[in-house]
């Protein structure tokens, strides 16, 4: 979809290459993440794709077409662009900001309005609250989300995203990442993504490009990058605990089936039966669900000892945190650490119980892989 052939960039008046003889091919529907230290040429590479910078040398093909000879405006209207500095227009409301590309494309008003609200919801900004605000009245993270919404509103087949989640807190960031991946699954956009966060790179990408001083050091899948870093520079960048980073690569639904956990019990289960189930359970806990399979609570060994009663409904206590099955194993690990428990319950959007992931499961995954 995107093909860079021998691309170089020397800025006027500079001796060094900002980008040097770069060859890169990105397949349709892939997310390609550029990582590397500050000043290594990530932004420059990205800006050459939509020709904000003209390459000094080399060729660029987009969807087979020679991008360097294409009409600039046409080229850019079909490439969603999230600039590193966010670059919202201060004199326009959030709605007007997001509607920029639809307006340039002369969409009918109604369609623009609908689509703007849709993408605002996607990035987690309530249109009712934020639509008529000006960028000055938004937090940094909210502005960044407007920037992302503005880039994707017209459904461009290609998106260039320069550190789009840099200014959001880790929790919102994880949520946006998951949301992003969910959207991406349905839309199959070709995305070039810049980040400083190696964990984010591993989680989001089909392929990772590690850059240093304008050149590509390694271009590989996240898994290959973790198991076979090309040199010392890459392995330093990836960091020490590479096996833990693998947890980013695996989603809960990929392992949940094979685990075969103790079945959840209905609310009217008798005490004796509960005891039996607890003995079978590796985590010494058992989940309680209602007739609709919705998660009601959890019973541990201590609950049976401390409380008196006859059925499960008398014993269970609330579940502190749950997780959905499209989260990564790393997300599961964070939840376990936060709650101080060795397990976390997996539910779907309707709070229906799907299974339990334990610390032991995570250890097995890490062991198997290394």
């Amino acid at each position, binding site marked *: 979809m995107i093909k860079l052939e021998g691309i170089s960039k020397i800025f006027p008046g500079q001796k060094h290459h900002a980008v040097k003889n770069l060859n890169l091919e990105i397949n349709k529907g892939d997310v390609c993440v550029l990582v590397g230290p500050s000043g290594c040429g990530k932004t420059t590479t990205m*800006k050459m794709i*939509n020709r*904000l910078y003209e390459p000094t040398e080399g060729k660029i093909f987009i969807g087979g077409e020679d991008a360097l000879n294409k009409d*600039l*405006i*046409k*080229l*850019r*209207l079909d*490439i969603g*662009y999230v*600039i*590193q*500095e*966010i*670059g*919202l*227009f*201060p*004199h*326009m409301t959030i709605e007007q900001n997001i509607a*920029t*590309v639809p307006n*340039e494309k002369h969409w009918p008003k109604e369609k623009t309005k609908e689509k703007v609200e849709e993408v605002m919801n996607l990035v987690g900004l309530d249109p009712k609250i934020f639509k008529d605000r*000006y960028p*000055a009245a938004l937090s940094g993270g909210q502005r960044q989300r407007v920037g992302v919404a*503005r*880039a994707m509103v017209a459904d461009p087949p290609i998106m*260039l995203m320069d550190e789009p989640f840099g200014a959001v807190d880790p929790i919102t960031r994880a949520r946006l990442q998951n949301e992003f991946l969910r959207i991406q699954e349905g839309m199959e956009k070709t995305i070039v993504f810049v980040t400083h966060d190696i964990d984010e790179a591993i989680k989001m990408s089909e392929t990772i490009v590690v850059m240093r001083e304008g050149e590509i050091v390694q271009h590989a899948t996240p898994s290959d990058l973790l198991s076979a870093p090309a040199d010392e520079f890459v392995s330093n960048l990836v960091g020490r605990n590479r096996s833990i980073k693998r947890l980013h690569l695996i989603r809960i639904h990929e392992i949940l089936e094979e685990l075969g956990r103790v079945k959840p019990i209905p609310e009217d289960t008798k005490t004796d039966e509960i005891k039996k189930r607890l003995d079978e359970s590796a985590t010494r806990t058992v989940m309680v669900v209602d007739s609709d399979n919705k998660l009601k609570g959890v019973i541990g060994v201590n609950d049976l000892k401390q409380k008196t009663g006859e059925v499960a409904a008398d014993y269970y206590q609330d579940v502190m945190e749950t997780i959905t099955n499209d989260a990564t194993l790393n997300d599961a690990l964070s939840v376990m650490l936060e709650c101080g428990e060795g397990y976390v319950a997996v539910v779907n959007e309707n709070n229906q119980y799907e299974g339990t992931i334990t610390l032991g499961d995570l250890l097995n995954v890490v062991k198997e892989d290394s």
Partner: protein
Amino acid sequence: MLQNIWKWLIIPLIMIGIGTAIVIYAVNNPTDSIVARMLTYERIFRVIREHMALLLISMLAATFVGVAAGIMLSRPRLYYAGRVVENIVNVGQTIPSLAILALFFTILGLGFRTAVFALFLYSILPILRNTFAGIDGVDYSIIEAARGMGMNSFRILTKIELPIAFPIIVAGIRTAVVINVGAATLATFIAGGGLGDLIVTGLSVHRDMIIVTGATIAALTAILLDYLIGRVEEKIVRWS
């Protein structure tokens, strides 16, 4: 809504009230026959009319030319020319208005037109400088975001740069108006008419009442216009 309009009007009404009161008082209570002859309703309205004509014509032309020149100089191709002109403009601003009037009088002769032309030149400076500074000051990442989304330079100018620079441009126009009202009182020296007629006549016949009447009306006009433009700007710019 009604309350809003009231809030808008109260200060202008007070100004106009004060002005009218002074005029009525001065005309009806002349200190002597000379003052009585000089200060008639007819004469006062004539000089106000002349003053407004000087102001309006020179300001309209100056706004038009100043903004256009400011935009041209802010184009990347003319960037260095822009810097040079900016410096010339800053130096030009330090030349006293009387000197400018004198200069044009020697070239263009006496009269209303010469006065308008001199005022026009004098008022271009703050407008041009602010237009240039306002556009030049737009954050480059904003321009790049716009370009990256497929806007051409003309769209960027009209949709992004000018609206963002608008408050600064208006500030330039306000400065120009205030300077212009003051400088226009000098037009009388080259037979350009205006409130300066009253002031200079008053000076030559040593009658304070005539001077004060002329000067107060000029001052009130400056304050009033400055206030009104500010209010209109506030209405238009809601984002800062």
